[in-house]
């Protein structure tokens, strides 16, 4: 039935299959072998906040690869990139990491699972509340053998948070919305670290009853009693916000009359050590009586 060619093909197929099985067997056996050194020395970070945490616990020299958006601190900029929204599992594996740091919800679920399956150690670092950010800092410190640095940093950040909380208590809480994107407007809801930032700084999160990162309709924005609007500020997103303030969903109704507080985007929107700077900035801004802070609708006037 089969010609010579067919037989050869089948034979070749069998050899390839055997080769494949051999590879797979080796890959599997490999996963059970414990790592030789005590602490990871070749670390890849898949998110900018994790890169910042590694540097902050004093282990920046262990990083051998970082995500495309890892731009802080300065030393992170020169590290090899492993991709942004679509990271390549093969490229990460080619760096021979002995630890990959990932966020629970971030970019690379598929590649991270694939890496775990071939025995690359992966540490998932939480960050969906300020408590979890502190916990993540301790976790990374412990795993990299910098227990004291991680503990010390977490304790220092925690005490700064307590001071902010104490200063803010007793003041009236202005109704606030913290945007993460202007159009369609998307904001921080409950169960996020930015909801904690708002609450601890003495604001009232109007979206505290909606989980995650809700998208807001222009009608909602125009009719809800928004006193304060917090927006992340960066070179990349500034024109998008200006456009939204000039003629987009932030240009009409109550939201257009809200006081606007701008905080640098990479400080505010990354669940890492610097979000505590954002917390202090926000509390300071809120402490000033309404009207004397940031001139509101600045973007609107500029765009006109």
């Amino acid at each position, binding site marked *: 039935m089969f010609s010579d060619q*067919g037989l050869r093909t089948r034979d070749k197929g069998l050899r390839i299959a055997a080769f494949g099985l*051999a*590879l797979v067997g080796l890959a599997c056996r490999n996963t059970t072998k414990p790592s030789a050194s005590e602490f990871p020395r070749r670390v890849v970070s898949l998110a900018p906040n994790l890169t910042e945490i590694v540097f902050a616990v004093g282990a920046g020299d262990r990083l051998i690869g970082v995500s495309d958006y890892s731009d802080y601190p300065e030393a992170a900029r020169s590290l090899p990139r492993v991709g942004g929204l679509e990271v*390549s599992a093969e490229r990460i594996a080619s760096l021979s990491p002995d630890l990959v740091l990932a966020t629970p919800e971030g970019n690379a679920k598929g590649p991270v699972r694939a890496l775990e399956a071939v025995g690359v150690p992966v540490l998932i670092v939480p960050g969906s509340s300020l408590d979890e950010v502190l916990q993540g800092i301790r976790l990374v410190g412990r795993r990299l053998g910098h227990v004291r640095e991680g503990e010390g940093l977490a304790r220092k950040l925690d005490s700064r948070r307590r001071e902010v909380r104490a200063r803010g208590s007793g003041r009236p809480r202005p109704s606030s919305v913290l945007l993460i994107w202007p159009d369609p407007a998307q904001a921080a809801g409950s169960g996020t670290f930015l909801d904690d930032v708002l609450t601890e700084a003495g604001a009232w999160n109007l979206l505290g009853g909606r989980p995650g990162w809700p998208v807001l309709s222009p009608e909602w924005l125009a009719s809800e009693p928004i006193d304060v609007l917090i927006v992340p500020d960066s070179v990349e997103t500034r024109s998008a916000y200006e456009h939204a303030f000039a003629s987009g969903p932030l240009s009409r109704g109550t939201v257009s009359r809200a006081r606007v507080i701008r905080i640098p985007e990479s400080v505010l929107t990354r669940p890492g050590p610097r979000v505590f700077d954002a917390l202090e900035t926000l509390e300071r801004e809120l402490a000033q009586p309404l009207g004397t802070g940031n001139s509101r609708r600045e973007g609107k006037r500029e765009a006109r």
Partner: protein
Amino acid sequence: MRASRSIAASLLLLLAAVSVGLAIGGVHLSLPDLWAGTGEAGETARRIAGLRLPRVALAGLVGACLALAGAAMQALLKNPLADPFLLGTSGGAATGAAIASLAGASPLVSPGAAFVGAVGSSLAVAALARRGGRLDLHRLLLAGLIANAFFSAVLLGIFSVASSQAARTMLFWMMGSLSDASLSRVAALLPYAAAGGAVLLLSASRLNLFAVGEENAAALGVDTERSKRLVFLAASLTTGAAVAFAGVIGFVGLLVPHAARAVVGNDQRLLLPVAAISGATLLVAADALSRTVFSPAELPIGAVTAALGAPLFAWLLLKNP
């Protein structure tokens, strides 16, 4: 023999695609290096081999499933445009699997949920397209359009209320992705693919009889209603299995059977196995493209197959006024 030569040729093409798929990727690791990865070459080569092999295997299995389902549905409906993607079967499967995975079901269950979605979608589309006891070509395409619109609405709705990772998960289900390939996922897909595929391949001679008309098939002793249901369920199962592990990858079920038919003719006993092998070939090659064109970033696999499939769809439409 012509038949064995066609099968041998398609296997050779598959081998070529697999070799290319194994040899290239996000990092350079040639076949000899991969060989070495089995020996002394150390951990990194082994890990890359361990990433690349399941990925090629998953691409091949998914491609074979989709092409086989497309070929069988085309024979069953006597309609060259019956493709799991165009007719909304994949959309129904993706919706089923997405709901199951959001509800926290294990990956082993999701092919079952995808199967239910695929069957439900196919039944609805067939009901919409039926006119006077037979399936009307134009109504079939419109019914597929309706189903796809409905399922994307459901998916968009689910994900916009679900969580912050909505956009990326949604992209997986709607554009397809093989980035989550691992041995355990390949092993989980295998039984579903094998069961559905075996039923379809064994139904080939009965599908041949359908080509000469249902009445003639009945006269020749085929239990037509039972055969139709069996093929229909098996095609939904293979589609559902493929979608559950790789999301919606369009046009494979259209592209491959057409190309195969042009070469080997319309004898289902030959067409179905050649389509299955060639489906594997196409997806392995398309995945190799998607991994390398914009490396280290990856192109969604659905974008690659759509870029190949859309022109063919247009040509088919012009050819069948």
